[in-house]
């Protein structure tokens, strides 16, 4: 059970962060189909940052002294760097969509093509292979919390809460949850958030009240890029041992589905992301999953083909979309270039 919860969170948390990224863009009126590409770019930049910092030996002393706090600061720095780079990358979409009034679907698709191409081009040149790894050791050694750090011996077990939420988890996951809550509050409870959302519903009305629609749409897209970039890095940190290979396996698109399923609202998105996280987790590790702790791998004994489990998240998404699409309500002005003369 602790394993199941831990693994579900690992998949669910980046998913909900990236889905919130989608909400920020769409609430300001820009369809951000490029989430996948931005995740890929952010993941690459984060890993590159970790790699260079390790190469320069900046945190080596902290690693040798097992100084948890500074190592986690290192991780946070990498996350912030990935977020900044994701924001920078999303400017391409913002410029095309806002200044040039481009087709946002095609613009997003272009970024989705551009990110893996650029990333793989440089990975090949830097690492001479198709995967960029950390400079040395692995992600678990540098960034993962372990029970031994809290004075537990090899044979000792932590209690339920400890083994679920402390042992073998990344602090990055919790930072993402905090960021998620903060950004959701900003979007719903502040003047800025209210103005941003108004630009996605009726930009002309917003403009008539003195709101700078162009600025707000830029803000929405850039915040969206930052969140997606961070989500991308945390995704590869926790699931791929901090390595980038120009692919996040359709996670960005899954996040879009989560956003629609969650009806563009943070709490619903949270629930949707947990559901998909659970299915992703089952697909990834059903054969070693011991749900009630009796030593029997129930799902494995059901003897269902692996491919069915792997298909599940996508099939469920389609089914769920089929049931919820009638009641879903997208921001009214999303995808429509802002034309000040149109009333």
């Amino acid at each position: 059970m602790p394993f199941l919860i831990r693994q579900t969170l690992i998949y669910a948390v980046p998913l909900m962060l990236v889905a919130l990224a989608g909400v920020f863009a769409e609430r300001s009126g820009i369809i951000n189909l490029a989430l996948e590409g931005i995740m890929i770019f952010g993941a690459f930049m984060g890993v590159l940052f970790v790699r260079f910092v390790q190469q320069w030996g900046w945190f080596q002393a902290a690693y040798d002294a097992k100084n948890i706090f500074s190592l986690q600061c290192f991780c946070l720095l990498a996350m912030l760097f990935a977020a900044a780079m994701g924001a920078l990358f999303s400017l391409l979409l913002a410029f095309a969509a806002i200044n040039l009034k481009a087709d946002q679907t095609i613009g997003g698709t272009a970024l989705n093509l551009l990110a893996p191409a650029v990333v793989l081009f440089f990975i090949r040149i830097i690492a001479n292979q198709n995967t960029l790894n950390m400079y040395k050791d692995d992600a678990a050694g540098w960034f993962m919390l372990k029970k031994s750090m809290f004075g537990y011996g090899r044979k000792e077990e932590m209690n339920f809460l400890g083994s679920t939420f402390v042992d073998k988890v990344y602090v990055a996951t919790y930072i993402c949850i905090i960021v998620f809550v903060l950004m959701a509050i900003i979007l719903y409870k502040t003047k800025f958030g209210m103005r941003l959302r108004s630009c996605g519903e009726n930009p002309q009305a917003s403009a008539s009240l003195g709101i700078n629609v162009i600025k707000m749409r830029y803000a929405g897209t850039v915040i969206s890029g930052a969140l997606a970039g961070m989500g991308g890095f945390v995704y590869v940190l926790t699931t791929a041992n901090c390595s980038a290979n120009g692919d996040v396996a359709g996670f960005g698109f899954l996040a879009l589905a989560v956003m629609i399923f969650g009806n563009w609202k943070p709490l619903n998105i949270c629930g949707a992301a947990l559901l998909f996280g659970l299915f992703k987790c089952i697909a990834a590790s059903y054969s070693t999953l011991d749900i009630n702790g009796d030593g029997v791998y129930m799902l494995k004994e059901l003897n269902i083909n692996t491919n069915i489990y792997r298909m599940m998240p996508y099939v469920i998404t389609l089914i769920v979309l089929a049931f919820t699409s009638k009641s879903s309500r997208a921001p009214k002005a999303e995808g429509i270039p802002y034309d000040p003369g149109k009333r």
Partner: protein
Amino acid sequence: MKKESFWEKAGTRSVLASLVAILIGMLAGGIVILIVGATNSTLGLGGAWEGLRLVVAGLFSKGRDAAGNLIFGFNPTTFGNMLFRAVPLIMTGLSVALGNKAGLFNIGAPGQYLAGTAASLFVSLSLPTNVLPTWLIWLIAFLAGMIAGALWGSIPGLLKAYLNINEVLACIMTNWIAANLVTWVFEGSNLKNVLEGTKSGYIYKTSTVMNDVIIDGVRQTVGANVPEGAQVVATRGGVATAKLGLDSLFSGSQVNAGILVAILIAIVIYVILSKTTLGYQLKACGANRYAARYAGIRDRRNIVLTMALAGALAAAGGALYSLSGNTEFFWNTYQSLPAEGFNGIPVALLAINNPIGVIFSATFMSMLQICGQKLTELTAFNEYITNVIIAVIVYLSAFMLVIKTWIGRLRKGKEAGK
């Protein structure tokens, strides 16, 4: 009324806008190469210069001479391979273009392409050649691929038409489902290449000849050579697209009649779109679904039909590629989608959704891929630079309208200056 001059025609401006997009895309790729060359001591500016020349003229590359300098000239092998690789791109490009004409963004081409590949491989490798002639098997396999693609494409079509689910999302989900489904189908099949030890991750080429034999009461599959004392139950495989002499025209390349089939299909789609009622209805639905419905066009039926047709086209690309007999399919594909499917998007955008234009833009895209291949072979750069160029072109085509206006203004400026 004054007749429009050559420069004022909408078609001319569209072609010009595409050419500008290509030029800027190449320029961006060139700049990336220059920067990498200048900052990387092992490559240097000399390396960057070689890279630049290969990106522009990789099609004419003939490798390096004894002194290590790049040599250029007509190379029939690369020309033939360019045509061969253009085939799947033409088909997926047509698929995306057809969707765009009907107002549907068909990003599901990779899944449909996979469906077509899987179905045609399955049929062509399973039907016994000692009962049916190989040309008939080829035809059945090709049609089976198209039907599979049509069915796969109609899923997002149905979801869009009846449940109003965004076709982009539905297509992406069906893509990944297809990737898993295809893996599942081949995982349990007897079509995995076990005859050649090093090719265990691949499905047999369709041209492989296999014999199902019974040796000492045990049924097993052997290659073309039947061991003595074995009883042959069935012969399978040996299916390949006809070459029609194209291989002697472009010696050493993989080209076959598939390119002619693709061009023919492109022309058929052009005729359907511009000369038939069906084409008019599809375009009307694309322009405004509700207005079309008001005019008595069955919009839902048309959406499903468009997606099914688009699916069949993308799948035909997969079928033509795999039925060529010299390509191998990596069956454990659940983690990746075929690039040919996604590359249909830039092909269609560059051709401004014109089926005839697709033939040229697909050939151009395939030439870029050849250049990338040469780049990897001959320099320290790699083929992903061509994907960067393609992505930049797609990015530019998102605001093709702006580029067209620029061109229009340039003309006006010149006329004013006269």
